[in-house]
């Protein structure tokens, strides 16, 4: 247990705990864009910055990955912090004009993004999609490519990925709506990654059940036999009513 001063008040924290957790626990509002509780902190958007003082020197650090230590003094909304956040949002606004999440935050911090030339990007390169695909799903279908202003999130060779399981986790974590899932005919398309994953069809009625690669992935992970998840929810309900089956029961009934 360590003690630090947060916006003038002494609070307790676990040694090494990220300041972001400590601050949020105390009800502080700290904006983030590249942070997600299910993923390792990344430190790319720099919005979560706070000002810390330690051994009589003050500096700006990202709270998502700065470890709490005894005797630290932290300000979550000092003028220096607010100025920096405002400028970060101004730059993001220039990069991604029209993105709702950015505009909302920019308004809070008073940036109007008129000083710099506008691009037409949707992606803020927060990396949430790449990281969820790698850390949580474990498939790594997409990655960063290039460097600097050429940095982008793509599939290898910008072709349809044969690793993607069409689960849609990337779209779920994307804060700007740059990624979308589209059901097209008998496939699920992941935009803008040029990837289409074929849908598995119900053994009874032929309706789409889910992406075949995703179903195979789930079967493999949970060690389920081939017959599981071969039937769509509607048909299963028709046969077995609204009862929820246990896995072993489902296996027995081959559904």
């Amino acid at each position, binding site marked *: 247990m360590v003690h630090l001063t947060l916006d003038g008040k002494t609070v307790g924290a676990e040694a090494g705990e990220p300041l972001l957790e400590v601050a949020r626990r105390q009800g502080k509002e700290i904006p983030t864009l590249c942070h997600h509780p299910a993923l390792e902190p990344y430190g790319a958007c720099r919005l979560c910055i706070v000002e810390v003082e330690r051994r009589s020197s003050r500096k700006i650090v990202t709270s998502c990955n700065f470890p709490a230590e005894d005797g630290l003094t932290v300000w979550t909304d000092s003028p220096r912090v607010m100025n920096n956040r405002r400028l970060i949002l101004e730059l993001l606004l220039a990069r991604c004009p029209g993105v709702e999440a950015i505009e909302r935050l920019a308004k809070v911090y008073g940036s109007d993004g008129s000083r710099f030339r506008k691009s037409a990007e949707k992606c803020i390169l927060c990396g949430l999609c790449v990281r969820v695909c790698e850390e949580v799903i474990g498939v790594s279908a997409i990655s960063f490519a290039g460097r600097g202003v050429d940095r982008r999130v793509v599939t290898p060779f910008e072709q349809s990925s044969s*690793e993607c399981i069409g689960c849609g986790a990337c779209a779920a974590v994307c804060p700007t709506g740059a990624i979308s899932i589209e059901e097209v005919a008998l496939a699920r398309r992941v935009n803008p990654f040029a990837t289409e994953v074929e849908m598995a069809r119900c053994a009874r009625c032929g309706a789409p059940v889910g992406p075949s690669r995703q179903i195979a992935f789930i079967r493999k992970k949970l060690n389920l036999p081939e017959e599981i998840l071969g039937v769509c929810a509607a048909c299963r309900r028709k046969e077995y009513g609204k009862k929820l089956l246990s896995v072993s029961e489902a296996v027995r009934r081959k559904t």
Partner: protein
Amino acid sequence: MNGAKSAVAGVREILARHGYEPRHLVAILQDVQAARGYLPQMALEQIAGALGVPLSSVYRVATFYRSFSLKPKGRHRVTVCLGTACHVRGGSQVLDALLAHLGIEAGGTTADGLFTVETVNCLGACALGPLVVIDGEYHTNMSGERAISLVQKFSQRAQGRSRYGEDTGERRRRS
């Protein structure tokens, strides 16, 4: 080792030389590029399979570092140094002159496939700039004019060869 990926000549030897260790990925890619002139897609797929790393990670590394190219290069690689010392001595004018003469952009290849002109951010021969390297040979104290005449020499030499790269005898006659 994924045997299903078709093998690109020489890649397996390179992988073996580096012990199939993922940490040697940069060196592996450099050796493949030295052998093939660029990084073919099939080679990267083979490497990913052999090392047991996701293809996206290999692609990430291949696109991050400047020395790698996913596209084939021209017969002669011309590199213009744009380090500070070379810049102060007129390095970017050398580049502009060369690109204007060859009709391409930086990083591009001429239509006849003879020249690729790239830039590098400092080769460490700073006292002798501006510097132009052609096929590994350093040329110092360059100017736009000198760079163009150098490149013209290569063109002329290339014209002295038949379509199949055989010496047309011009060299023999001269010596």
